[in-house]
């Protein structure tokens, strides 16, 4: 008889924080107490709160233990399970009220979320198809196979679901176009090439609830008339590949994939194709070329993949999060889906909250939630009591949302008005210590590396922009540089073939729009207000604080610091390479960085 269940988060982030060794301790302690048959340990997908990991939840109580490690994991068994006493030290303490949260229901990070896409992540064992079925899994498939393809497509269209990969195109229209296209065979493709830096919702869905994507792909195949599906996933996600592959095998075993699915006479199967570190392959036409065994370079649209995709045949391509929305829509209906979100962007969106925010992780909220709610209510505000400066959205294709727009509801259309995009949902939170010129330069550097080279404006233009950004950060900026950047940016946007080039200048344009003063400080005053750009910094020693401990002088590789023991030290500016190691080592805060 099982009396308790221990759910351990085995998402990618918790594994790096030591989930496996915590599990080993739990298994060992259960055996030592002779209760291994009464307590079941289940490794789940991502629970979302990455910075609290490893997380262990004890059921039926739902007690939420966070930051569990090998030293204290035994307490969960010996105190909670054996003696019936909650382990207070492992509970989450709400920072403002200092109240201890017993369950995830007491933690603001969780209470404000609406879990639809992530409905099973962190709840079930992703390797167990039975647990997926117990949560209404494959029910939508059964229902769909009794509907006509047109009825399915109409439901998806009525729901107003828009592609979660970033472009926000109507999923229903895409399905209809692929179904109506002439040519056979047709293909279903899932874009799991989640390349936007800072977005990891697709990874979590593939790792935590792989069957939800398989089920939706089968439904899509039935709706458009395809018998083959391809899951394209990045090699950077080995765990997602492993779990998805396992899930495919199980689905075949249970008759949800393969010949004559659920006795309907419909055949469908899925193959995994792996990407290997090319960002541009997230662009749909490039991804299709990559599946075909070619270089992943984009092609001109039209023809759209719906008309001529894989091997020139009609192909439906949606992203992981989009597919994860399909089964609940078919079960609950289009109106249910529209019950949350905004009228033009119905449903929920999963955001990856990362950077300088207190609570990092994955959060699913209704479309139209404000940045303030995301950063302050759910995210718990900025780390170390610093000031919020901006949120970088849409990765290298996006821009920034500043403090002035904290109360703007976020959906596909609103953020476009201020020059950024929602993208796939990465929200990198920046604080006062981040230099916006450096951030823009960084994202631009990313596209310079990832440009496939096909279009000259993207390949050469971004490089020229990067050179200008570099000289601004090096203190060699010229007065006309801002104008030059804007001009070049618009040429690149207008003349590049694919989304990568068309959006590559966005981080620069967006930061110029909102932080022109920071650009001017770099160019005119040769100062980096956030003290990030190395060449614009001056390190000096505050004579009031220096105790003459000699630590900095010994640390300095170029011997730029002189001074005797217990005497005030001095930095020779002509020798200083601005490496910052003196600043790091000084225990008396005597090094000034200006």
């Amino acid at each position, binding site marked *: 008889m099982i009396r308790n269940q221990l759910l351990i988060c085995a998402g*990618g982030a918790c594994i*790096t924080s030591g989930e496996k060794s915590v599990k080993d301790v739990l298994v060992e302690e259960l055996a030592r107490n002779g209760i291994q048959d009464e307590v079941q340990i289940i490794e789940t997908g991502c629970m979302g709160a990455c910075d609290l990991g490893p997380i262990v939840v004890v059921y039926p109580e739902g007690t939420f233990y966070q930051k569990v490690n090998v030293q204290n994991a035994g307490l969960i068994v010996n105190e909670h399970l054996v003696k019936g006493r909650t382990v207070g030290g492992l509970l989450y303490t709400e920072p403002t009220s200092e109240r201890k949260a017993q369950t995830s229901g007491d933690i603001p990070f969780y209470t404000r979320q609406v879990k639809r896409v992530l409905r099973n992540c962190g709840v079930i064992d992703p390797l167990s198809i039975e647990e997926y079925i117990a949560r209404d899994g494959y029910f939508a498939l059964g229902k769909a196979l009794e509907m006509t393809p047109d009825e399915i497509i109409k439901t998806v269209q009525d729901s107003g679901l828009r592609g979660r990969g970033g472009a926000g195109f109507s999923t229903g229209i895409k399905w209809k176009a692929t179904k109506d296209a002439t040519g056979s065979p047709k293909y279903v493709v899932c874009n799991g090439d989640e390349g936007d*830096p800072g*977005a990891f919702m697709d990874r979590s869905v593939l790792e935590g609830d792989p069957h939800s994507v398989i089920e939706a792909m089968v439904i899509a195949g039935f709706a458009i008339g395809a018998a083959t599906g391809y899951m394209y996933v990045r090699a950077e996600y080995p765990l997602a590949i492993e779990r998805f592959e396992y899930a495919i095998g199980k689905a075949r075993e249970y008759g949800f994939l393969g010949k004559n699915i659920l006795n309907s006479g419909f055949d469908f199967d899925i193959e995994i194709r792996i990407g290997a570190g*090319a960002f541009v392959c997230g662009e749909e036409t490039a991804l299709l070329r990559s599946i075909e065994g070619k270089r992943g370079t984009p092609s001109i649209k039209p023809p759209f993949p719906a008309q001529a995709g894989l091997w020139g045949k009609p192909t439906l391509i949606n992203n992981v999060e989009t597919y994860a929305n399909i089964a609940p829509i078919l079960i609950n209906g289009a109106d249910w889906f529209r019950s949350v979100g905004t009228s033009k962007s119905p449903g929920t969106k999963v955001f990856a909250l990362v*950077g300088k925010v207190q609570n990092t992780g*994955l959060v699913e909220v209704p479309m139209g939630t404000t940045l303030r709610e995301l950063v302050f209510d759910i995210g718990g505000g900025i780390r170390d009591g610093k000031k919020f400066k901006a949120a970088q959205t849409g990765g290298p294709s996006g821009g920034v949302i500043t403090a002035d727009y904290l109360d703007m509801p976020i959906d596909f259309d609103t953020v476009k008005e201020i020059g950024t995009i929602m993208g796939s949902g*990465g929200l*990198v939170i*920046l604080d006062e210590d981040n230099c916006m010129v450096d951030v823009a330069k960084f994202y631009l550097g990313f596209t310079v590396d990832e440009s496939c080279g096909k279009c000259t404006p993207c390949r050469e233009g971004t490089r020229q922009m990067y050179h200008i950004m570099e000289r601004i950060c090096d203190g060699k900026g010229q007065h006309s540089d801002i104008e030059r950047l804007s001009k070049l940016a618009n040429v690149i946007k207008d003349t590049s073939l694919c989304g990568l080039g068309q959006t590559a200048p966005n981080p620069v344009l967006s930061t110029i729009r909102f932080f022109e003063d920071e650009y001017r400080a770099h160019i005119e005053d040769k100062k980096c207000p956030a003290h990030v750009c190395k060449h614009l910094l001056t390190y000096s020693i505050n004579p009031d604080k220096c105790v003459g401990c000699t630590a900095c002088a010994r640390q300095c590789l170029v011997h730029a610091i002189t001074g005797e023991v217990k005497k005030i030290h001095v930095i020779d500016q002509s020798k200083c390479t601005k490496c910052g190691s003196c600043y790091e080592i000084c225990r008396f805060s005597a090094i000034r960085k200006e």
Partner: protein
Amino acid sequence: MELDNVTRPAGQAQPLSDEDKRFLRELVETNRIEHHGRLSYMDIMFELEHHYGNSLPGPVLGEVARLLGTSPAQLNGFVTFYTMLSTEPRGQHVIRVCTSGPCHVTGAPAILSSLRQLLGVDIDETTSDGMFTLEASSCLGICGVSPALMIDDDAYGNLMPEDLPRILDAKRAGGAR
């Protein structure tokens, strides 16, 4: 550290043995059957890398191109397009430091410079003992615990420069894969 235990990546100049040729033929044929004629080039490349010490030697690619019915130039174009594949010899373990946005703003540059110092190599270089190749990677998708890196298939997060020697030592002690 014992240098004898290090598997040397197959050199570019080494000619293919009959055994190599048989291995390649079987690899391509198995792939052809598994994928119903729509071959998965990437699976072939990863299996080749696994077999030939984390790299794709020129003569091997030439033979594989022949088996795939494509030209060596086409296949080379494919291989060099994808940053995770390498035609250059690499070490036993490939360290991929995430240099994406979230990791950049939370300290990836410091991690990278520490690794450069500890290993004595720059990005895309291999340590002289053939143990590690250092690479910069695009987003690893564990941004919640940034800065992060991956060694082979194992990910490490919430890194501080002082954590690195322990991680490297553990990998070294683990020996060959």
